[in-house]
């Protein structure tokens, strides 16, 4: 007889063998941040703990919380119901909130137990990410940065209005605080030879990014009023006197760097700024929200036009463009086709070229690592190695242009590769397997709740300065936004050993997530489960538990709330933010339909004199279908139980919240 057949708990994941199935946001994130977990903590207004969750995978939480193109949101299953969760904005809430509370900024001080040191060339997101993780893995990293301050393109290429410099400084200071040395103003290849580094250090990581602008092979590109985007942005960022701009500026390019060049030019000149790009408006590589912000600030965009020649005699007078018929070939490769006869002129007195970037590898010696015929570093994507032993690479220098979070991911992978090379016992983590889409018939049953918009300074005001545009979600808005999360894959799970195939869960689930077949085998579909908890409260053998706020977790929260002398306890709801009795200690649940009789009695047993259950309305349904019906049934049974035990049944009471903060969510 095994213990499992008596009363020992053991829970499987939603479907046996699916241990690795995770929320799609986490799977889509290049660094696989447990977004769901920190979103829950934001919903409960616990920003310091939320930030700690972000930090588990993300060494630059404040930076990424501001500038990330958030592939997580594209994967977010809430998008299949109405709109995706504003995951990136909530990450910012975590760090802003933690900072306000004075928390979350004590970096760990790892011991460099491996006894080896690594030279990292470049202090952009990839180099910083690698250094951070290497330090945690016990390897001492030293970063070499050619500029006078650390940050790489985050500092030189991204403008203060999107990423304030003090924010970048704080994230970098944290990494420095971990014992990571950053030597700024040191140019490898000039101040120190690459071979010297390779000799002195146990490994070298090349993370130099793409630091140079591509120029345009067109007539007139050598005129003095023709600028390259990277040095232009660098000058603007450094607060150096930017090259004199005219009053009619043309930016060539349709990517995010072009957008930043245009927005900066608009701020500096106050004049007319026009972007000219090959792509149609829906093909533009810049993110849609960046395009919206730029056009709101008065930048105009001319699509489907390619530069033919920069006009002017000693001084720019305009850009001659030709119609671009298509940008990509059948295989989707960049191969623009032009109509050479359809020419027109965009008038202007300044041109900024933002058509792409390349790396500068001139510091590499002849002895390797080798570059290919196109001048690109030869690189093993899996092991992050180059052709020279002990020399690794990461970030845009090997991956090509992308988001900061991709460079970070690349740096983190390289950290593991380097640490393994130096003898650390560590493996590359497995790729998470996301759960599937919200099935038809289920999406319709989810309560609609609008995505909360990030407040921003009005376009007219912000286009005249470089102060931050986005203001951050206010606390209540942030909590309401966080509570829209569907808690993917964190729902009901059952123990095969304890399930007796009684069918209760199959009958009570409002979303058809639970099933039994004729053989008595049971399962719970993580795609259909909405994490309402009704099956879990009703299962007679306690064969079902739930990923978010498991019974044990809620019990622990009840105990924590009541120690410290709390006399009364209120169960609140994070969807509606219902809280009626502010004096009572609180346990916040995802809808009080989650409350079982056991949990109510547990509160009484642990000494609560009165137990309040705050609900958002009189209706049968709470945030979930039948949620309040479940709450009322549990409260009625618990009242009866305590009456039988000789207590006043009035000690347990449902209270309806008159003023909901998250009205739109219920």
């Amino acid at each position: 007889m095994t213990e499992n057949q008596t009363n020992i708990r053991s829970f499987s994941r939603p479907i046996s063998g699916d241990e690795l199935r995770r929320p799609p946001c986490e799977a889509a994130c290049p660094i696989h941040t447990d977004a769901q977990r920190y979103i829950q903590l934001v919903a409960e207004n616990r920003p310091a703990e939320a930030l700690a969750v972000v930090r588990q995978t993300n060494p630059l939480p404040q930076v990424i919380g501001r500038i990330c193109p958030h592939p997580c949101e594209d994967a977010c299953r809430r998008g299949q119901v109405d709109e995706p969760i504003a995951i990136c904005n909530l990450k910012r809430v975590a760090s802003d909130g933690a900072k306000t509370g004075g928390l979350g900024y004590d970096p760990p001080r790892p011991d460099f137990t491996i006894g080896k040191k690594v030279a990292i060339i470049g202090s952009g997101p990839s180099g910083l990410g690698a250094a951070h993780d290497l330090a945690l893995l016990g390897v001492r990293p030293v970063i070499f940065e050619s500029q006078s301050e650390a940050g790489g393109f985050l500092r030189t290429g991204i403008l203060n209005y999107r990423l304030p410099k003090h924010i970048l400084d704080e994230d970098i200071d944290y990494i420095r605080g971990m014992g990571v040395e950053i030597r700024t103003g040191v140019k490898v290849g000039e101040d120190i030879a690459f071979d010297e580094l390779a000799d002195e250090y146990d490994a070298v990581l090349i993370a130099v990014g793409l630091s140079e602008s591509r120029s345009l092979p067109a007539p007139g590109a050598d005129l003095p009023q023709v600028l390259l985007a990277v040095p232009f942005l660098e000058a603007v960022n450094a607060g150096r006197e930017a090259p004199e701009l005219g009053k009619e500026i043309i930016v060539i390019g349709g990517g995010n760097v072009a957008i930043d060049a245009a927005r900066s030019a608009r701020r500096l000149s106050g004049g007319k700024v026009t972007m000219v790009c090959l792509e149609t408006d829906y093909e533009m590589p810049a993110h849609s929200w960046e395009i919206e912000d730029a056009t709101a600030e008065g930048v105009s965009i001319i699509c489907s036009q390619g530069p033919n020649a920069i006009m002017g005699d000693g001084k720019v007078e305009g850009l001659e463009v030709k119609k671009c018929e298509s940008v990509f070939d059948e295989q989707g490769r960049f191969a623009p086709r032009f109509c050479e006869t359809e020419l027109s002129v965009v008038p202007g007195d300044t041109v900024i070229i933002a058509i792409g970037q390349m790396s500068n590898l001139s510091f590499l010696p002849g002895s390797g690592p080798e570059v290919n015929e196109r001048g690109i570093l030869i690189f093993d994507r899996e092991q992050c190695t180059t052709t020279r032993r002990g020399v690794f690479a990461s970030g845009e220098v090997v991956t090509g242009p992308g988001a900061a979070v991709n460079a970070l991911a690349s740096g983190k992978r390289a950290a593991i590769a380097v640490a393994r090379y130096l003898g650390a016992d560590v493996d590359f983590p497995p790729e998470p397997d996301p759960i599937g889409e919200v099935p038809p018939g289920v999406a319709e049953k989810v309560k609609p709740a609008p995505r909360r918009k990030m407040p921003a300074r009005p376009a007219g005001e912000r286009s005249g300065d470089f102060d931050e545009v986005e203001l951050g979600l206010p606390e209540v808005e942030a909590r309401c936004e966080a509570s829209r999360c569907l808690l993917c894959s964190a729902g009901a799970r059952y123990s095969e050993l304890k399930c007796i195939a009684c069918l209760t869960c199959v009958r009570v689930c409002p979303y058809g997530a639970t099933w039994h077949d004729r053989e008595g085998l049971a399962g719970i579909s993580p795609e259909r489960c909405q994490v309402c908890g009704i099956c879990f409260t009703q299962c007679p053998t306690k064969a079902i538990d739930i990923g978010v706020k498991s019974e044990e977790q809620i019990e622990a929260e009840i105990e924590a709330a009541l120690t410290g002398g709390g006399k009364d306890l209120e169960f609140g709801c994070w969807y509606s933010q219902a809280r009626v009795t502010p004096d009572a200690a609180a346990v916040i649940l995802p809808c009080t339909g989650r409350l079982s009789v056991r949990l109510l009695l547990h509160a009484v047993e642990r000494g609560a004199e009165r137990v309040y259950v705050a609900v958002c309305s009189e209706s049968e349904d709470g945030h979930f279908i039948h949620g309040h019906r479940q709450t009322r049934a549990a409260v009625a049974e618990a009242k009866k139980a305590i009456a039988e035990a000789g207590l006043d049944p009035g000690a347990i009471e449902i209270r309806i919240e008159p003023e909901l903060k998250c009205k739109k969510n219920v």
Partner: protein
Amino acid sequence: MTDDCENVLVAGCNTCVAVCLTGGEKEAEQLAQQLRIARRREGIRGKVDTVTVLRQCENEYLDAIAVQVEEADIVLSTACSIGPQGLVFRYPRKRVAPAMNTNMLGYVREHHVWTEYCAACGSCVIAATGGICPVARCAKTLLNGPCGGSRNGRCEISPEVPCVWQEIYDRLAALGDLDSLKRIIGPKKWNLSNSGGPRTMKKEGFEP
């Protein structure tokens, strides 16, 4: 009943009574919580624990909880009344009490509603009554019904209760087998039911 006991054990049973949402692990734990609340209020010292087995009607499962049972001053069983009796058989010197009143053998007509379908009478008649049991489901246990109290398909004891003989008639009519009702069912051997001493059943020849 447990006031004079320091250590109380509530024993749940995770099969039939769990399916009936009356005595499985969850219900056993709720009962223990209730007892703890009441005992604390009355200032009774000691502890109330729970243990649940898959079936209290089998020796092996009861043997698996020997440690918990030995520690307890009294065991409250939330199983059907076989459970406490099994505990008494297995632990002859232990005080045992039922924590559940065993009602009937029921069918789940809808979720959370159980209706008596079988009286375990020992001489089944449903082969002759369209597969519907008049012993369990007729208020008078009539074998050749209905009686004069059948009104519009309802039993005279309550408009809530259907007349089972109407159900038997309708079923046989639907099957085109009304003629079978002309056969009188003879006197029933009630000594096979609970009036002939405890019944035992043995599966011969396959002993371990």
